[in-house]
């Protein structure tokens, strides 16, 4: 009912066409300002990228004094989230999302708590002991402190 093509020929020609088109569509991404914040009761002021990654991939569950870590994120479509992933964690947003989905749907663990916007992020971090999150810019905030990243 359809013309019989050699499937290998078809595969090669389609792959070539797609790669060429997509290579043309590549474009650089712009930078965002992101600040890492935590509840003021969190017992650290500095954090390494390695520790931060362990926290955001849900592998570390407690601060040094055994206070549970509460991890907050903005929605995947939020540009501050993309900036946080790429510039602070040095991971791609899809990498984090895939990892969280694997944890949740294989029954191994939980994903971070997603918040609707930066205002909610600030409120929740101020009121949740052990909370960590990020905003595009930290103005004077009650109960929230900025975390410095160890380079």
């Amino acid at each position, binding site marked *: 009912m*359809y013309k019989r093509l050699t499937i290998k020929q078809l595969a090669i020609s389609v792959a070539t066409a797609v790669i060429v088109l997509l290579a043309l569509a590549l474009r650089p991404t712009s930078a965002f300002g992101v600040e890492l914040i935590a509840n003021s009761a969190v017992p650290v002021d500095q954090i390494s990228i390695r520790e931060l990654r362990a926290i955001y991939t849900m592998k570390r569950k407690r601060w040094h004094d055994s206070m549970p870590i509460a991890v907050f994120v903005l929605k995947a*479509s939020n540009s501050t989230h993309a900036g946080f992933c790429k510039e602070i964690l040095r991971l791609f*947003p899809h*990498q984090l999302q895939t990892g969280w989905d694997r944890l*949740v749907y294989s029954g191994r663990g939980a994903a971070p708590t997603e918040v609707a916007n930066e205002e909610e992020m600030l409120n929740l971090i101020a009121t949740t002991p052990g909370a960590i999150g990020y905003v595009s810019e930290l103005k004077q905030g009650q109960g929230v402190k900025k975390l410095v990243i160890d380079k």
Partner: protein
Amino acid sequence: MKISILLDGVSRSVFALLLLWQPLAYSVELAEELRFSGFVSQAAIHTSDNNYFGNSDDDVSLDYREVGAVLSVSVWENTHFSTLVLSRKAGHNSDGSLKVDHLLVNYNFLNSYDHTVGVRAGRLKSSYGWYNETRDVPFTRPGIFIAQSIYTDRVRNSYYFQDGIHLRGEHRFNLDTLSWHLGYHRPNVDEDEFVDVSPIPGIDETKSKDSWSAGLIYDYDAGKFRLGLFLEDKNFDEIFNDRIKFPQIGIPGTPFKANDLTIENLFRNFKLNNQRFVLSAEYNTERWSFVAELSRTFVDVDIDMNQDSSDVFLAFGSAEPFALDDPDLATSLPAEFANLTSLNFDQKVDSLAYYFQTIYRAGASWDILLRYDVFHFDEDKKNGKKLAEDFKFNFVLYPNHAYYAKDLTIGTGWYINPDWLVRFEWHYIDGTGWVTSADNPDRDDSSRYWNMIATQVSYRF
């Protein structure tokens, strides 16, 4: 068996409760450590020939939908419970009834900064390849369907679900992570699937036996590069009913033609051993993902002959009862049956499956999938060409193209927002190796070359 019925009952109640919350339409955090989320998907599938997930041949099948909800709770620091209940409708293979997809507890007895070692026990999904554990969750798949060569739905219910225990560990170094598991389990059995894939008709009952699995994954930089090796050893006993007919083709090389022979009490049972190894690799950049997986499956069917039955000798036309390993058998049989003495009743199958997959993310909201996926039922007999000669005692023999499949897939996905996903894909397929007999009861009548277009809408909450 009783326990699983009880679990099904419990999960149904839990699911009914969860559905009451669904109108809230977002992930509900019921308490600090109690989590609930889920997904709904609906697909439309059209094929030029052969049915896939419903009556799609020259028609549109809407018989592919998934509704699932996962509830998890961390009770103590090192203990995490999780259950996923799933209603999956997929053509004539899955009827949409509520099932416990997983119900398990994770307990970590070592949890340091760099090392985690623990157990997970309960109803688990087989931990092989990159996608099996989350195979029914639309947002975790690169397309509407995952590569059917390796993740075939033909034996889905029996080969991917199991009750058992896994010892597992994760060791984190600077950018490298090594994780592993060792598993002991009993696979669940879906009787219909064994009847479908068995080369010999007449299976009355299939029982799962002690089975094992192991896996090792190396991960560099939180998933930028991953390499995995997975091993599985599954065992089943197949018990045959008293009367076996030779449908379809009779016995090649003998005077027996289709449907003209019935043998009673020939077989007692088969021991089916299925060993599989899967090698998986993945490389991710911001915009591109490259995935390749290879699977070899060795199936060994050890047949326990019932050599005492007088029905056997009557069927073969011998004057005296005989043992099939009797050296004098050839001389005691009529000439046209002489070659029956060389019948090889033990069957070995060596399946090969592999695919290459590229995903391009053209932005946060859409992606493109390109995949070439190959499956050979028996690697030594590529394209099914020599199957008829070598399977001397293969009672059910289909056209050559029923023993392989090559699938070229092009697809695209669009995230309307992070919670809504629409996918569209086109498959050009040579062979019907992984289509199910439930959807295609007349496998003899299948078409070698076929096209499939499909679209799917998924929502997560």
